[in-house]
Structures are given as structure tokens and as C-alpha cells.
């Protein structure tokens, strides 16, 4: 599961948001480096070094015709045109699939984000929870759920066939299924930055548009859309980058004819072992994504011309039309949520299934068997245990290192700020296959005499810490730079020294951001498959168990665990929301008499929840 981070994408989109260090604070020059060194060292050793060595590998030439004989460094740039000519087709297909998924995600996400930002009222927080919640049920298992939804002879396919809408009479194993899966999997990457951008738009601007004779469509085209562009750009990049490098959706939903570039890189590294070609492909993928992310914003900056929009007609059906107009958005938003929850529903329902055969993809009969005997296959529970341990450790270390970097970036001026920012951003812009494969290359090269770095728990942990740091930095940084520096100055003015200021003012105010970052880090780590798959050795995490079990059939116990994870996360977030609301109510009730005086502003007194924090990154 991954939740988007809009701000780094904005930075490459050429709209940097430098966080100005607060004047009057942090005069000690040494400080930022102490905050930076641990995290940056981690990123350097486990991200930059592997990337450099990956680049070196891409210039190697084979010792002989047999790849098993190994390779030597040869400045062999010919690997690049070679890779391109061999796998150009997969490249193009990846971009077409990822592009289609991105556009679809935008079409689905924009009205939903718009609805949440402008129309949801007091349901805003709940809807945000609902948007993110599905992604606490495992990524892989939800993608499998699409197999059930789109199965031949299933409800969806039968309906569409009855309408004669399907060219191949089926969806599964066609590009349609792949794009559906990609769209679905990366949808929150689109929704959250869009929401963050739309939520910042003052609703009075829309009213002003209407006041100045703009029809609703014109107001949208001239006011809302241009102002939401940063979110559109961020969402587009954050959907496109992982989608272009993905191979899981193709493997699970597509056919071998639909192979994307991620699949090629994976198999070149793991099966074919043509490392130079695989490395060259990795770099070509990164380069083309960079190029696309430079071009993308320019394309996006064309504004919608609303002049083509039809004027609202007055007619006898006026009332009906108005009802439709007023409720279209809500209905659309509802449908988008259904799309997001459908696979989760399937996962939950099939946890109560007693599968007829080995595959738990079609309904047989109701049973509590899986729920009463979760650990029937002890490897499942061991895998979950491993995943939880890794995720907890990665969360703790990653959150600490990332928070320190965020403080250094926001609070201090120092030489190398832009380099630091770049180093934070790059891991997020690098496809997971590249991250995973380059790290593997590094670990394989870590030996001393007969000692060889063993692949397993610790290598997975190292990899997870590496890729969660960036997400933590971005989340905490957003919260920190949104913090009014005068609050800390006020504390200093009121006799709080640096320590007391940090303890009583800075930390409590930044805590929701740190909590959000930790939640994000945990879910990223718990759900990661691609990077883990490269570096796990014989250790089995929960996603790897699912992947491995797919061949012989996924037991319903996996659905049970996914359901527990989903309900648990939903419960925690909802509980936080309810407690926050109750605290607000209690403090308001204490002197309800003065409530009117507090003004109609109705701003919440408690800080935003961790979840809103994730969504509310600057854009």
C-alpha cells in the first residue's frame, strides 16, 4: 500500500515550495548536520551507491556467450540501444497502460476529491478515511480480488457480454483488466493530492465566479481547475511513476502478451540474469519517467476551455434537471467509492468461503472455518509475524531518521539543501523494481572473505527503512513548514528555552504529522512486495506468502488476515476521529453559553488527524 506524497512531485514539476527557515531560531551551525547525517547516510549507502553500481553494471559486457560466466566492466553503452530494440514494445506498452490508468484515475478521482473538498461538510473526515481505508487490506490480495470480479462467466463479464460491449468476450487476461487493476491500485495517489489542492481553494472564489456571471462550467474551467493544477500534476506523476514500473497487475490480471517493462526487468534480473541489459532497462525506465515528468506539467497547464460547455436550459423538466444536476456529483462520488471498496468487499466475503477446489476465487459455501483456524497453515502466521516485526522496526527507525531530516530541512539553512531535497525525492521517483534490484546487487557485493551478507530479515529491513524515509520526510516536512514560526517565538518570549519550546510547543504541534508519517511508513513496509522480493532470501513476508501461494491456491485464511488488517486500521483511524470530535465537543459544552460568541467559523480546535495530515500535504 502506498499513499501519495504530492510535494516532491511538485518540486520536479518546477513549482518548488522552499520551506524558509524561521528567523531568529537555530543559530548553531553544526545542528543540521547532526540531524541529517544518520538518514542521509542511510540513503547514500542503500540508495545512491546501489544506483551508481547499477549504472556501472549497465555498462558491463559478458565474458563469454554464456551469461553464467559473468560480466566485466567495459563502458559498453551499446547495452542501451540493445535493450531498447529488444524490449521497445514493452516500454511502449508500459507507457500506454500507465498513461491510460493515470487518465482514468484522474477522471474517477477528480469528482470524488471535489466532492470531499467542497460538498462533504461534516462527512469530510469520514470520507477521507474511507478513501484510504481499502489500502490497509493487502495490495496483492485486493488485486487477486479483481480476478474474482472480472472472472469469465462472472457478473461483470456476463453483463457486458449481454450488452455486446466486449470485443474478446472476456476481460481477464486482456489489457482492460490490467488497466483496471493499475487504475484501482494507484487511485489514492491521485485522490489525495487532488483533495489537498482542492481543499485549499476558498469556496468563496467559486461564489465570486458565479457572482461575476460565470455559469457553473465556466467557473470550474476558469477558477477551480487552474487552481487545482498543482494537485493534478502531483497526482498524475504519483500515479504514473509506480504504474509504469509495475508488473504485479500484469502478472495477476493480464496475459503473457501484455508484459510490461517491470516484468522484463524482474525476469532479466531474477531468471535470465542478464544483468547489464536489466540494469540498462532500469535506467531507461527512470530516464523516461523523468522525461515524462518534465513534459507532463506542461501538458497539464493547458486550461480547460469551457466555452464549449452547453448552457443550462430552462424547460418544463427544469426541476428534474436541477435535481440531477445537484446530485450527479454525489452519485458519481458514491460510485467512485464503490469502485474502491468492491475488491475489499470481495476479500471480506471470501474470508467466509469454503473453497470448492484450491482456488478461493468462486463462491462455494459459507464457513467460519478460516476465521476459527487462522494458523492452520503455520507459515501464514509466521509470515504475518515477520511482516509485522519488519514493519514495526522500519517504522520506528524510518520515522526517527525522516523526522530528523525534516527538521533540518525546514528549520535550518545549510549548504547542500537542494542536494538533500533531491536525495529525498529520488527514491520516490524510482520504480520499485529499480530500487529492489539495485539493492540486491549491493547486498550480493557485500562479502568479506568467506562471509557473505545473508539475504533475509535484515536485508529486507534495511531496504524498507530506505524507502520509507522519503515518505516520512515529506509528511513531517509538510506539517512542520505549516507551523507558524511565531508560535515558537512566543514560547521563547515566554521563558521557554529551546528544550522547553520543543517539548511544549513544537513537538505537540508536529505530533499529528509524525503519527501520520509513522502510519504511512508501517503500511508501506507491511504491504511491500516488489522490493522485498529481490532482497528476502528465504525469508517469507506476508505479501510474499500470498504471491507464493497463488500457484497452489490462496487459502481463505489470507482473506481473514487482510480483513483483520483492514478493520483494525479502519477502527484505529475512526477511533481517533471520534475521540477528536468528542474532545472538541466536550470543551465546547463546558461553556456552551459562549458558543455563539465563538463565531460561525467553526474551526476545529484539535489538530487534524493523522489521516488528514497525510492528505493535506502542500501542493
Amino acid at each position: 500500500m502506498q499513499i501519495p506524497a504530492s510535494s516532491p512531485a511538485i518540486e520536479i514539476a518546477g513549482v518548488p515550495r522552499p520551506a524558509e527557515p524561521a528567523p531568529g531560531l537555530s543559530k548553531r551551525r553544526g545542528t543540521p548536520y547532526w540531524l541529517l547525517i544518520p538518514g542521509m547516510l542511510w540513503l547514500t549507502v542503500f540508495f545512491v551507491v546501489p544506483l551508481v553500481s547499477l549504472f556501472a553494471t549497465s555498462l558491463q559486457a559478458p565474458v563469454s556467450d554464456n551469461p553464467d560466466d559473468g560480466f566485466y566492466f567495459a563502458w559498453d553503452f551499446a547495452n542501451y540501444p540493445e535493450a531498447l530494440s529488444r524490449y521497445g514494445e514493452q516500454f511502449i506498452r508500459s507507457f500506454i497502460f500507465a498513461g491510460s490508468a493515470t487518465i482514468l484515475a484522474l477522471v474517477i478521482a477528480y469528482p470524488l476529491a471535489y466532492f470531499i473538498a467542497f460538498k462533504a461538510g461534516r462527512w469530510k473526515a469520514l470520507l477521507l478515511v474511507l478513501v484510504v481505508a481499502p489500502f490497509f487490506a493487502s495490495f496483492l490480495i485486493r488485486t487477486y480480488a479483481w480476478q474474482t470480479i472480472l472472472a469469465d462467466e462472472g457478473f461483470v463479464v456476463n453483463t457486458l457480454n449481454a450488452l455486446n460491449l466486449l470485443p474478446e468476450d472476456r476481460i481477464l487476461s486482456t489489457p482492460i483488466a490490467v488497466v483496471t487493476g493499475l487504475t484501482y491500485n494507484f487511485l489514492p495517489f491521485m485522490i489525495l493530492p487532488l483533495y489537498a489542492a482542492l481543499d485549499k481553494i476558498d469556496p468563496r472564489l467559486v461564489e465570486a465566479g458565479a457572482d461575476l456571471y460565470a455559469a457553473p462550467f465556466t467557473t470550474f474551467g476558469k477558477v477551480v481547475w487552474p487552481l487545482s493544477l498543482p494537485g493534478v500534476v502531483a497526482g498524475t506523476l504519483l500515479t504514473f511513476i509506480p504504474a509504469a514500473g509495475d508488473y504485479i497487475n500484469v502478472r495477476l490480471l493480464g496475459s503473457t502478451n501484455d508484459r510490461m517493462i517491470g516484468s522484463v526487468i524482474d525476469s532479466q534480473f531474477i531468471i535470465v540474469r542478464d544483468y547489464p541489459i536489466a540494469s540498462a532497462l532500469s535506467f531507461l525506465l527512470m530516464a523516461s519517467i523523468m522525461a515524462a515528468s518534465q513534459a507532463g506539467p506542461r501538458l497539464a497547464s493547458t486550461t480547460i476551455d469551457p466555452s464549449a460547455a452547453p448552457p443550462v436550459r430552462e424547460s418544463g423538466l427544469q426541476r428534474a434537471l436541477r435535481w440531477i444536476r445537484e446530485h450527479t456529483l454525489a452519485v458519481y462520488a458514491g460510485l467512485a467509492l464503490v469502485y474502491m471498496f468492491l475488491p475489499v468487499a470481495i476479500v471480506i466475503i471470501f474470508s467466509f468461503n469454503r473453497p470448492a477446489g484450491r482456488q478461493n476465487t468462486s463462491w462455494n459455501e459459507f464457513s467460519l472455518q478460516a476465521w476459527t483456524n487462522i494458523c492452520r497453515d503455520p507459515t501464514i502466521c509466521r509470515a504475518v509475524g515477520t511482516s509485522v516485526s519488519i514493519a514495526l522496526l522500519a517504522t520506528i527507525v524510518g520515522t526517527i531518521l525522516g523526522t530528523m531530516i525534516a527538521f533540518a530541512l525546514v528549520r535550518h539553512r545549510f549548504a547542500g539543501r537542494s542536494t538533500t531535497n533531491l536525495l529525498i525525492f529520488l527514491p520516490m521517483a524510482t520504480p520499485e523494481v529499480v530500487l529492489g534490484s539495485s539493492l540486491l546487487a549491493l547486498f550480493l557485493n557485500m562479502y568479506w572473505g568467506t562471509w557473505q551478507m545473508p539475504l533475509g530479515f535484515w536485508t529486507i529491513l534495511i531496504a524498507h527503512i530506505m524507502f520509507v524515509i522519503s515518505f516520512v520526510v515529506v509528511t513531517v516536512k509538510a506539517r512542520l513548514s505549516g507551523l507558524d514560526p511565531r508560535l515558537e517565538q512566543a514560547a521563547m518570549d515566554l521563558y521557554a528555552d529551546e528544550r522547553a519550546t520543543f517539548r511544549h510547543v513544537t513537538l505537540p504541534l508536529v505530533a499529528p504529522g509524525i503519527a501520520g508519517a509513522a502510519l504511512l511508513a508501517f503500511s508501506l513496509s507491511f504491504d511491500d512486495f516488489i522490493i522485498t522480493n529481490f532482497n528476502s532470501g528465504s525469508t517469507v513476508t506476508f505479501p510474499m506468502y500470498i504471491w507464493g501461494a497463488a500457484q497452489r491456491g490462496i487459502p481463505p485464511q489470507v482473506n481473514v488476515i487482510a480483513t483483520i488488517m483492514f478493520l483494525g486500521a479502519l477502527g484505529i483511524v475512526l477511533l481517533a476521529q471520534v475521540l477528536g470530535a468528542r474532545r472538541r465537543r466536550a470543551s465546547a459544552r463546558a461553556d456552551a453559553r459562549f458558543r455563539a460568541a465563538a463565531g460561525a467559523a467553526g474551526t476545529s480546535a484539535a489538530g487534524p488527524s493523522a489521516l488528514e495530515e497525510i492528505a493535506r500535504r502542500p501542493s
Partner: protein
Amino acid sequence: MADAFKQVDDLHLVRLTKRYGEHAAVDDLTLTIPAGSFFALLGPSGCGKTTTLRMVAGLEVPSEGMIRIGEQDITHLRPFKRPVNTVFQSYALFPHMDIFENVAFGLRRRGEKNVELRVNEMLDLVELGPMARRRPAQLSGGQQQRVAVARALINRPDVLLLDEPLGALDLKLRRQMQIELKRIQTEVGITFVHVTHDQEEAMTMADTIAVMNQGRIEQLGAPQDIYDTPHTAFAANFLGQSNMLPGEVVGRDGIVTVRAFGQVVRLPQEKVSTDADRIIVGVRPEKLHLHREGTEVPAGRNTLDGVVTDASFVGVSTQYLVATSWGQELIAFEQNMGSATRPAVGERVVVSWEPGHSFGLDGGDDLNAGIEEDLREVGHYTASDAQAGLAPTPAVGG
């Protein structure tokens, strides 16, 4: 708190300078603020008043110079070591603490006793007792402002700094808070240093005003003295409106005689702040009196002829624009006493004023200094100016 009068010392700023690169935000400022006074730093945005305040608070480090309270040098003390507290612009209340904890913050940091008692006392002083357990976001702007004052005052600082504390409030509330702040200051007897760009606010509250411009003090004095005898065009324009006549000094004999545009006006020597031969004679609009044709002008008054080009009734007074033969438009405010009929637009009038109501400025001063920064205070430049194609200036039009 009335018994809390404390013995405080004067605040001294000595040759204080703050540079950002080449630009001096505060330029060699020397100033003594008497203990227990209500002192206003008045000036347009960017004049260095807030920087000065922040240096006193310890939030900026001076490039040069010294800040002392009595004999204690506080120039390089960290903010939390100074006997100085600040009411921040837009208040900077801690959003995660309730009102009580906000106010108690300083006492708790210093490990003081009787926190509960003192906070409640202070909340009563600012009339927010019932609000103690609410969060800042649940209060109105005026209430938040009072919390900010209470939070700073409770520490009984030697000096209380107020950084545009009323800027976020609407006009009516601002008036109310002005009176309230003045009351609190008299009650506790602490030195208040108030930064504002609102001349009316400064004049209402302060015992002493320092008019700042480009990092320097243009003029320092009691509000009435600065208003009646400004020393520079900037001070004259920033505190209210003026009519200004540039001219040559033709006689100096206790009474300074000036020839301007062929007219002769007189003013007392003590009202002239320069020895230059070219001076500007200024006079405030409410000091002018309009005489209709055929009425007697009392002897000894300065007089100018003109034609009324605009008359707007604003309730307590009527504001006239009177065009002179050389094209300048004079502004005159006449109180509406309800007696005589008012001159009409197009009517010939004689404008007169007491020589002692004039002031004399150096002829080299920019007549428009201090105007564009604060047009809304100057106020009256409306359609008639636009039609006449005049720059928005209360003084010379040509």
C-alpha cells in the same frame, strides 16, 4: 493587579542598527523609552519599526548597537532570558492548549507558584474568566487579542511589546481595545512599546510617539506636539493631512514672513524647524476657516483667495476643496455648527488661519513623503481629484 506596580527602569536603545545585506532596516537608532510610559513606534510598513521591536524581544540580533533596561545590557540575551514579553501580530496563541494553559505558559516555564490563582486573576482582568477552558480557535478575534495580552502581562515584564496587536480587528472592536489596552497599561504601570502603522491608534493610546521612516526616527514627541508642529513633511503627512505652500523666507523677526505664489503668509519663529531660506508652510485642514464674499476677515490672520471646487458633508464636519489662482487645491474642514449657510461649489471664498497654527518645514522636503504609504488615513482624494488629474496629495497640485 493594581497593587502590582513594579519598579521598572527605562529602556535604552543605543545606536541600534540592523542590516540585511546592504540594506539597513534599522539605521543607527538611539532612543530612551521612559519607564511606565506608553510608547508608540509609528511608521509605514518596511520602516523598521517591527525589526526594532523584534530586537528588543530578542528575536533578531542587532548588527550593531546596544539595548539596555536601566543598567542591564540585554543586547545578546536569548529571548527567554529577557524581562520583556511580546503580544504578537495575529497573537500566536498555542492552538493545542486551552486559554488557561496559554496564559499559564510563562509562569510554568519559570516554575512560579500560585499559577492557578494568578492566571484566574489575570483572566478576570481581561474579562475572560469563563473562557479558561476553551481553545483559542473557539474565541473571537477580540477575545484572542485579550488572551495574547494576558499571556504576556501575567509575567510582569519590565517592558511589554505590542506588534500591531489590533491590526486584525474591525474598526469598532479596535476602538474598544484601544481604550482597554490604555486602561490595562495605567493599571499595571508597565512600559508598553507599541508598533503600529495606524496614526490614530498611536495618537489615541501613546504618551510618546516616534515616527519612523527608512530605519530612522523622523520625529519624537507627544502626539499633540508632532501633530501641531511636525518637523518634516513625512511626519506632517503621516500624522494626518496638511496643506503645504512652498515659498521664500523674506523676513525673520520673531515672526517669519514667507512669500509663496505671490502671497505673503506669516508664522511664529518657534513653529519653524529649519534655518533654510526656502521653506514649506504647512497648515492642518481643520485650522482653515472659509469666509464667504462680503464677510469680514479678522485682522492678523493669514489669508488666501480661492474658489470652492468640492464640498462633501461628512456629519461632524464639511470638507471643502478650494482652488487657488495658481492651481493648488487646499483642503479645509469646517465644523457643522448649524449656523451660517455653507459656501457652495463654485463660490469665491477667502481662506484664513491663525499664523500660530502654521508650521514651517525645510523647503527641500518631498511634499508627498509619507503619503502613498497610508492613503486611507489621508482619505479624501475622490472623484474631484481624478477629474482634475491631480496626484493624490493634500498639498501642491502643480
